[in-house]
């Protein structure tokens, strides 16, 4: 209630949040995976985040109470609220929303005022997509507001889903570097973007190398960027690190959208990277993970956090560091007025739509987690009903904000979970055998013990279907007990089932946009209630 909220705010101050004993001669500020969120959000961190292979049980594959224990965080504290799913609803009511580019601007301004020319601000990508405004303006609202922060460089992933022409158009006007050493043209195999940029910060030559999401043309529609080829390209990373060192770099920073486990493996295999600013998997860690001599930083998502890493670099070697993951509590950090005005202007064309209430929710709606989140269950219910299907498939995106129980569901909330450039809801027959193949394939993209063979997001969400998964098994034998809920019978490999889903990577997919359909469904329900999901039985952890 409001009393607890006042109490929470009394205890938290901007000064405390930003308190940092400056250290060394370089400061890196890192934001990533903002996903179109200009204003503060509720975003519940995952309950389930399973690590396999060498990542098993290692951060970021530690969640909930284990996370609090591991990092020495007090239950029900501000940090517990920002970093875990524990007591989420109650703490959200106390501590309020987190994020907003205007709060971010305040923090960046303060650090720059303190550290002057020692500061590098780097954006890990997935910035231009994830909201109604971002989708409607094809990334323009985000690009405009981010430009006011004057980042030094960015890389990308969902940015590419606006297509080659639009990406080039936005990059041309950025005023800073878009770095991606792992993108080549499909005709002559030549680099499309700059691999790295050299900066002089605090008397230190810093090379920032960019790595775009390696599986963009696999996880997202390849037809939108047919002339660009991606990949991890470990050899190229190695070559560019060497090139940067030869060019005199004293500090090597990889601005990466690989995902945490890929970066963990890369750090162990490629010598000479001092810092990897990770992205894509949306992990928020209160301290760096050290692999050999490389520091891995995980700065969360949706604009909730900014990372500050102060480094002491002497003679081309990092002698020491100090780190803080700063949560941007919206009620605590004073918004930057110029940025607030820019955000207001960017949102104005959509303001009426964004605020429109569609229905109410009695349950906490969230997406993040390896398996079905409640928002996905709601989307699956909508797909089943509105497209008269037996089975629904909804992609396991890691982005999408949360809606608190008892709150209205607005058009903005719906788009925060669905805003993509290929939103068509397909309806097609699929055999039981094919459905098994699909689940096996997606499961391997998440649970292959070698992270280089993982791609994409969390597990595909299923409606109308229950199944069991043993994450420790190889591809082809993880999924069992697939059952059609409507009949309670096992899925027949030979029978065709009517399947509704969205976000197909195939060109020419037909159907209504998913947000229209979800809106219609919620409006008809008036109040939605989503029971805890018991349809996926998980073993082998």
């Amino acid at each position, binding site marked *: 209630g409001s009393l607890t909220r006042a109490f929470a705010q009394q205890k938290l101050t901007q000064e405390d949040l930003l308190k940092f004993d400056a250290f060394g001669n370089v400061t890196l500020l890192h934001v990533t995976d903002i996903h179109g969120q200009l204003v503060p959000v509720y975003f519940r961190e995952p309950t389930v985040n399973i690590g396999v292979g060498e990542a098993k049980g290692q951060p970021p594959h530690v969640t909930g109470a284990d996370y609090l224990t591991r990092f020495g965080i007090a239950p029900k504290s501000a940090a517990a609220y920002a970093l875990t799913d524990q007591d989420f609803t109650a703490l959200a009511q106390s501590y309020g929303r987190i994020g907003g580019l205007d709060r971010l601007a305040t923090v960046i301004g303060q650090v720059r005022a303190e550290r002057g020319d020692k500061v590098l601000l780097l954006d890990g990508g997935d910035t231009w997509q994830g909201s109604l405004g971002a989708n409607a303006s094809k990334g323009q609202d985000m690009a405009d507001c981010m430009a006011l922060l004057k980042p030094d460089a960015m890389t990308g992933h969902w940015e590419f889903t606006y297509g080659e022409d639009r990406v080039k158009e936005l990059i041309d006007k950025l005023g800073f570097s878009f770095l991606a050493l792992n993108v080549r043209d499909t005709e002559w195999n030549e680099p499309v973007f700059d691999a790295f940029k050299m900066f002089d910060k605090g008397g230190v030559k810093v090379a920032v190398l960019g790595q775009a999401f390696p599986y963009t043309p*696999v996880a997202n529609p390849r037809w939108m960027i047919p002339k660009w080829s991606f990949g*991890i390209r470990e050899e190229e990373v190695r070559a560019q690190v060497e090139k940067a060192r030869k060019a005199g770099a004293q500090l090597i920073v990889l601005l990466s959208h690989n995902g945490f486990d890929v970066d963990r493996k890369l750090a162990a295999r490629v010598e000479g990277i001092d810092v990897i600013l990770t992205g894509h998997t949306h992990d928020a860690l209160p301290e760096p993970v050290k692999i050999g001599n490389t520091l891995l930083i995980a700065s969360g998502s949706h604009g909730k956090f900014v990372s500050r890493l102060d480094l002491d670099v002497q003679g081309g070697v990092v002698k020491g560091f100090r780190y803080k993951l700063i949560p941007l509590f919206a009620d605590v950090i004073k918004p930057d007025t110029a940025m607030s005005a820019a955000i207001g202007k960017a949102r104005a064309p959509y303001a009426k739509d964004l605020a429109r209430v569609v229905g109410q929710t009695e349950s906490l709606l969230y997406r993040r987690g390896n398996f079905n989140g409640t928002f996905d269950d709601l989307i699956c219910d909508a797909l089943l009903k509105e497209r008269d299907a037996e089975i629904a498939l909804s992609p396991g995106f890691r982005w999408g904000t949360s809606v608190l129980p008892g709150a209205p569901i607005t058009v903005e909330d719906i788009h925060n979970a669905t805003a993509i450039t290929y939103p068509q809801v397909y309806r097609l027959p699929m055999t039981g055998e094919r459905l098994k193949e699909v689940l096996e394939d997606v499961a391997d993209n998440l649970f292959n013990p070698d992270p280089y*063979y993982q791609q994409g997001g969390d597990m595909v969400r299923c409606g109308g279907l229950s199944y069991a998964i043993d994450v420790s098994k190889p591809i082809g034998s993880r999924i069992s007990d697939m059952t059609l809920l409507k009949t309670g019978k096992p899925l027949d490999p030979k029978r065709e089932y009517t399947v509704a889903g969205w976000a197909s990577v195939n060109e020419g997919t037909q159907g209504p946009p998913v947000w229209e359909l979800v809106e219609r469904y919620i409006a008809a329900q008036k109040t939605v209630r989503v029971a805890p999901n018991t349809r996926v039985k998980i073993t082998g952890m």
Partner: protein
Amino acid sequence: AAFSVFGLGTGAQATPETAAAEIAKFAGGKAPVAGKITIELPEIAENGNTVPLAISVDAPMTEDDYVTDVLVLADGNPNPGVATFHFTPLSGKADASTRIRLATTQNIVVTAKTSKGAVYTASKLVKVTIGGCGG
């Protein structure tokens, strides 16, 4: 979830055994030694119809010591053969790149012979995926 299907067609497939037989023939009875070869391939193919492949063999490439032939096989395609590259000292480097077709998830096996009679081998797994759900 999102799906697309590609490949060389269905039917009989090569196996690691048929690939091994081809390698034995190529190696002329010599047992290949692991090493010296770098294979650049995506871990996961973007498009099974055109997968970029680069091979590089560590060799002096002088008149008296150079890589003569490199055999590239795919052990899960309808036929294992992909290409054989032939080098000379004028090649300068024993490097070659091309683009290949992969019907399914499989190993690409590369075997190299040198003018001194050495035989090297290396392989890399490429996953050909049907689903895609981006984070």
